[in-house]
């Protein structure tokens, strides 16, 4: 079935990115938006848009019935969920199918199977995919889990069965701390997922986080599209990804790729998905499967020269995977690095709000920016603080790093504090440059130095403070107002 009008049930950079491919395929695009985002970039780039009403995300982007209403109202015949929000909601996947629309994502059953982390572990073990040693699926009470914990050995991790993204996860170093940790994890898991069940996993000292892109079609073809190295994380959230991973050789890559394909097959997967592994001392363990497009999908696109969103739409329309993929004729080339620009301070990772007063994206050979904001965009606290992704491609890893650093330095962002200094520090760090790093990279880095302003910054500031305020190019309406007065311009006091 050929899709004519695609509703993107998301916001920010991923909504914009999906629309671009849709437009190239001759498919009309429909944006949805919460009222506070009526003028947002993803709305402005769509062919049409539907309001989801006012309120917090749970009443807008996370409301299955509103998304379906929007699809009906706009005449959309298909829905792309992006990542986050409802992308891993079996309820939406089912409701879309029941409404007679196409779902650009995996079957609801596959989402459900992989969404329950304990069930997924069991499935993977049965499919011969190695998993991190952990507690038995039946162990639920404190007593049962304590016994399992002694068997696995401390330190270990407590994790939410329904979880993801590290929510509800904590490290426990001694048996006596386990009960308190279990209670806390159950509370968080209950609040976040309406499911209090937790389980235990062995703690790996210096694991790398390496994931494989998988893709399957409705004809039963399942392939992998190589790996992404995602070990640069802050508080369990990725901030820099690269491909290929310096930790894999050809043999290990082949074994992990096979395991990823086996994982996808075990749940009769269809569409784009990602199988995450922990890699420690040359051994790898299934971590979880993300049953959606990944934030960092773009680095795979750059090294393979493919468009994963186009492939998603084609598979959803009933087309088979490209024959080159089916026959293993993918041609990885060069090196790609993604930097995630977050609206957050670079030291404590506290989210920042504000209005983007200056926004000049880097450009040029080998530089791609997937962005969800623009000059004038309002950045609030109700959504993920990801502003944009910089993807740098180079013919080898040093060239890609140099290009990423060059582009990052050229990126002008004013109005909202970002993690730009942290990203620059990662690129310049010995550990990252060497390629030998694990998920504790950030912990081992020296703290971000607060450099004093260079003379040019003092001069620019003095010039701006000497001039009449209108001459600084700031829009009156866009100016934040930390002094407590209301918005419009006033002369310097």
């Amino acid at each position: 079935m050929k899709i004519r009008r695609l509703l993107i049930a998301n916001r920010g950079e991923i909504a914009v990115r999906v629309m671009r491919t849709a437009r190239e395929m001759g498919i009309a695009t429909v944006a949805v938006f919460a009222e506070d985002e009526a003028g947002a970039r993803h709305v402005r780039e769509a062919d049409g848009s539907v309001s989801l009403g006012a309120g917090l995300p749970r009443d807008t982007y996370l409301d299955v019935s509103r998304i379906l209403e929007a699809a009906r109202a706009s005449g959309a015949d298909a829905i792309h969920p992006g990542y986050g929000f409802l992308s891993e909601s079996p309820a939406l996947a089912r409701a879309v199918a029941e409404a007679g629309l196409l779902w650009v994502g995996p079957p609801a059953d596959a989402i459900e199977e992989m969404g329950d982390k304990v069930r997924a572990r069991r499935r993977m073990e049965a499919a011969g995919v190695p998993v991190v040693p952990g507690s038995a699926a039946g162990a639920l009470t404190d007593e049962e889990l304590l016994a399992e914990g002694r068997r696995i050995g401390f330190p270990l991790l407590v994790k939410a069965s329904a979880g993801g993204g590290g929510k509800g996860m904590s490290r426990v170093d001694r048996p006596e701390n386990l009960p308190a940790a279990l209670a806390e994890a159950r509370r968080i898991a209950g609040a976040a997922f309406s499911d209090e069940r937790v389980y235990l996993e062995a703690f790996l000292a210096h694991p790398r986080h390496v994931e494989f892109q998988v893709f399957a079609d409705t004809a039963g073809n399942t392939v992998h599209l190589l790996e992404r190295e995602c070990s640069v994380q802050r508080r369990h959230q990725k901030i820099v990804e690269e491909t290929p991973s310096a930790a894999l050789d050809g043999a290990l890559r082949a074994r992990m790729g096979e395991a990823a394909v086996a994982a996808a097959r075990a749940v009769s997967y269809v569409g784009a998905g990602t199988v995450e592994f922990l890699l420690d001392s040359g051994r790898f363990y299934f971590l979880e499967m993300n049953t959606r497009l990944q934030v960092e999908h773009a680095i795979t696109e750059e090294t393979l020269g493919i468009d994963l969103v186009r492939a998603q739409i084609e598979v959803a329309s009933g087309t088979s995977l490209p024959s080159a993929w089916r026959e293993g004729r993918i041609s990885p080339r060069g090196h790609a690095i993604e930097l995630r620009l977050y609206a957050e301070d670079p030291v404590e990772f506290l989210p920042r709000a504000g209005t983007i007063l200056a926004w000049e994206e880097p450009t040029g050979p080998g530089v791609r920016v997937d962005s969800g904001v623009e000059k004038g965009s309002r950045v609030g606290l109700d959504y993920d603080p990801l502003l944009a992704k910089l993807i740098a491609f180079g013919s080898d890893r040093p060239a890609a790093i140099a290009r990423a650093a060059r582009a990052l330095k050229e990126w002008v962002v004013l109005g909202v504090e970002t993690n730009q200094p942290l990203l620059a520090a990662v690129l310049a760090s010995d550990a990252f440059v060497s390629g030998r790093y694990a998920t504790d990279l950030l912990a081992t880095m020296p703290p971000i130095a607060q450099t004093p302003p260079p003379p040019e910054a003092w001069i620019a500031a003095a010039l701006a403070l000497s001039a009449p305020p209108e001459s600084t190019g700031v829009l009156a309406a866009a100016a934040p107002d930390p002094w407590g007065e209301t918005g419009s311009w006033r002369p310097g006091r």
Partner: protein
Amino acid sequence: MRLRAGEHSEEVRLEKDRARVGDHEMPFTLEQDGDGPAAIVSSSGRVRVRVRRDGRRVTVWCDGHVFTIESADGAPRRREEAAHEMVAPMPGRIRRVVVAPGGTVAKGDVVLVLEAMKMEHAIRAPREGIVRLSRAEGDLVEAGERLADVEAPLASPPATGADSAT
């Protein structure tokens, strides 16, 4: 003029085509475009800049780094956080108010919970006393905004100027 950027401070004097930054005399030329200053060129090279002003404060983007610089000449100092006040450490939304307005707290008790993104941050009482809330559950607040004060029990009169919840 005297400028301040966090803990750093400089005396900056602008003359025609030259500047004095602290003890450092520096001839420069300014490049501008439709968006204001674009670069400062001096003997040490060309440095790209972007500036946005808000009142007596500017943010300066300078070759990949961002600085917040404000005028320190006779500036009204930022309100010092008084020992009895609780202010927001970052922008966020008040998720829960734990203590009833007018309720009594001990030093260190959680008064309210601020949520920024998915993280929750407990705001604790700086001393023993009676809580007066300045903001209400669900409010969006900016960094540095006063959330509540704790009055000494039985001693001082009710704080004036504390807004009721808006």
